[in-house]
């Protein structure tokens, strides 16, 4: 019976322990700098912490992935090259990369190192994925959140590498690694600075009985009395177009593909990824445990119930996202 590798986020050593205890097969982390796409204050791993993380993960018989998935700054690739070198030294089982130049560096400098292609590379076709495989020996691709289940199944039959897909958590509605919405409003790029809708630019203002959430100069939402205010991520904001006010891009909602696990297995997917390196250990423990249970159920031929994680979803709302063709 096929199974799915459960790939879990750890933004702190405590979250890493929580993920391992809750049943992670693999944990992914990043260094404490702009080389990774969750460059939030107080998160991520120093070099000694990363070496220690590798020891703990390996002692548990599990794998450690290190994400170095932002795009190196022109004229200063040094920090990114060093991150790759240090990830190899720390004992990463695989390094998750997005930038073509950085992949070239890693493949040349560390020819034996296993490389995964980050979702930030937005490789959505067999041609693109085979190119990364041929050029850099990439062994696994994290698929962009744009493909349907049927498209993923078709893709898997045409590529020589493993696929990993997002199963739960925050959901980009734009093709990842190619979105400049946050840069347009804050001047900080998710793709080079590693942070989308940065907290430094977030403001909440009371206006009468309403609460206004802003990112930079942009009003992302206005909440009426009693309406819970969410984080002002631009693509989850309420805007007006054509005389209609709506969540034009996406509702405040979380991805939850627990209900699609049997189909994802059938589609030949290798690994399920939980988003959320910015989350606390309690969240990680809960989500990982539920997905451990869900995968184990699916292996026994049963269909998991996505409702178990409703409390962990943004706005307590969940979607199967692009896996369901109707989402488009």
């Amino acid at each position, binding site marked *: 019976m096929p199974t799915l590798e459960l790939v879990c986020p750890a933004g702190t050593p405590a979250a890493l322990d929580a993920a391992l205890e809750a049943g992670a097969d693999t944990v992914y982390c990043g260094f404490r700098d702009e080389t990774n796409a969750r460059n939030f204050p107080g998160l991520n791993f120093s070099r000694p912490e990363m070496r220690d993380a590798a020891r703990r993960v390996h002692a548990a018989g599990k794998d450690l992935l290190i994400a170095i998935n932002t*795009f190196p700054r022109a004229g200063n690739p040094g920090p990114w090259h060093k991150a790759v070198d240090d990830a190899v030294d720390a004992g990463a089982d695989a390094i998750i990369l997005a930038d073509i130049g950085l992949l070239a560096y890693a493949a040349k400098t560390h020819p034996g190192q296993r490389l995964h292609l980050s979702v930030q590379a937005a490789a959505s076709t067999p041609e693109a994925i085979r190119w990364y495989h041929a050029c850099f020996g990439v062994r696994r691709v994290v698929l962009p959140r744009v493909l349907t289940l049927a498209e993923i199944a078709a893709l898997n039959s045409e590529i020589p590498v493993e696929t990993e897909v997002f199963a739960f958590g925050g959901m980009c509605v734009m093709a990842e690694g190619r979105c400049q919405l946050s840069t347009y409003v804050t001047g900080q790029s998710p793709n080079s600075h590693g942070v989308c809708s940065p907290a430094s630019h977030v403001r909440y203002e009371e206006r009468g009985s309403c609460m206004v959430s802003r990112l930079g100069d942009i*009003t992302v939402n206005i909440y009426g009395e009693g309406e819970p205010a969410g984080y002002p991520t631009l693509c989850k904001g309420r805007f007006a177009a054509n005389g209609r006010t709506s969540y034009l891009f996406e509702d405040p909602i979380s991805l939850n593909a627990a209900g699609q696990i049997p189909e994802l297995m059938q589609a030949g997917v290798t690994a399920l990824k939980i988003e959320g390196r910015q989350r606390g250990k309690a969240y990680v423990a809960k989500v990982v445990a539920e997905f451990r249970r869900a995968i184990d159920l699916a292996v026994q031929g049963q269909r998991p119930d996505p409702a178990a994680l409703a409390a962990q979803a943004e706005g307590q709302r969940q979607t199967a996202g692009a896996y369901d063709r109707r989402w488009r």
Partner: protein
Amino acid sequence: MTDCKLTLGPLLYHWPTERKLDFYRRIAAEAPVDTVVLGEVVCPKRTAGEEILPELIALLQAAGKEVVLGSLALVMQPRERHATADLLELDLPVEAGDGTALALLRGRPHHAGPLLPVANEGTLAMLAGQGLRRICFAGELPGSTVAVLAAEAARLGVEAEAFVFGRLPLAISARCYHARNHGLAKDGCQFVCGEDPDGLVVDTLDGMPFVAINGVQTQTHSYVDLVGDLAALRAMGIHRFRLSPQDLDMVAVARTVRATLDGQIDPEEAAERLQDLTPDTDHSNGFFHGLEGRVQVAGRSPGLVE
């Protein structure tokens, strides 16, 4: 400054066939652009009007323009993959819009469009080794990055181009926001994006213009306008500049930028002329100055010009 060239980028909007034909007839006859990029790069569903492609190619070439074919920015399904592969059969230079096209173009001379994530010299060198001959840098790159990339491009024998006018694409999605705004499914979209020939402006709840949507693409609300930064770009070694078609007098835009490059008008006058052509929409150059993309910084960029 006659060494400078102008590229008219691909039409990003869904215009009726007849209107498209009129637009390119006038470009061929009157616009001082050297190169025109043709082809649907935003939405693979927009197949209406593709039968006029040979006619457009012929009329632009007859007017002495170089014609380049642009490929889709997001490729997912087999028919989109085939459409991308078919572009290579037309014996014209192809500008890659995504990794699928890049993969197919490996080993033969090709161009790269501004939607590819080429952010540093390592990536540029890798692509140059595979046949990249011209690249339009992504419009969100700060001037400090553009300077490094332009120098590296010169070393590698790759022609560098900068996006200097038009609504800049900010994101691409599998989801169609035009269809969603109209309460329609993407599969039954009725091509409502065609109602907005310059994109549909999206406002904040406070009534401030935010972005423009164009089907599956999200763009800046403001027109990116680097006419005041042309000297800085030239000092970096960039001699080719891209204008992106908007629903306004693009011949006048091209003439204004051309006249600025030729030293016939100064950048201040050029900026006024461009703003006069687009009275209702702000202009921006914040990305180039390393700031919020939506802002407009007056004057030349300190530290960029010697």
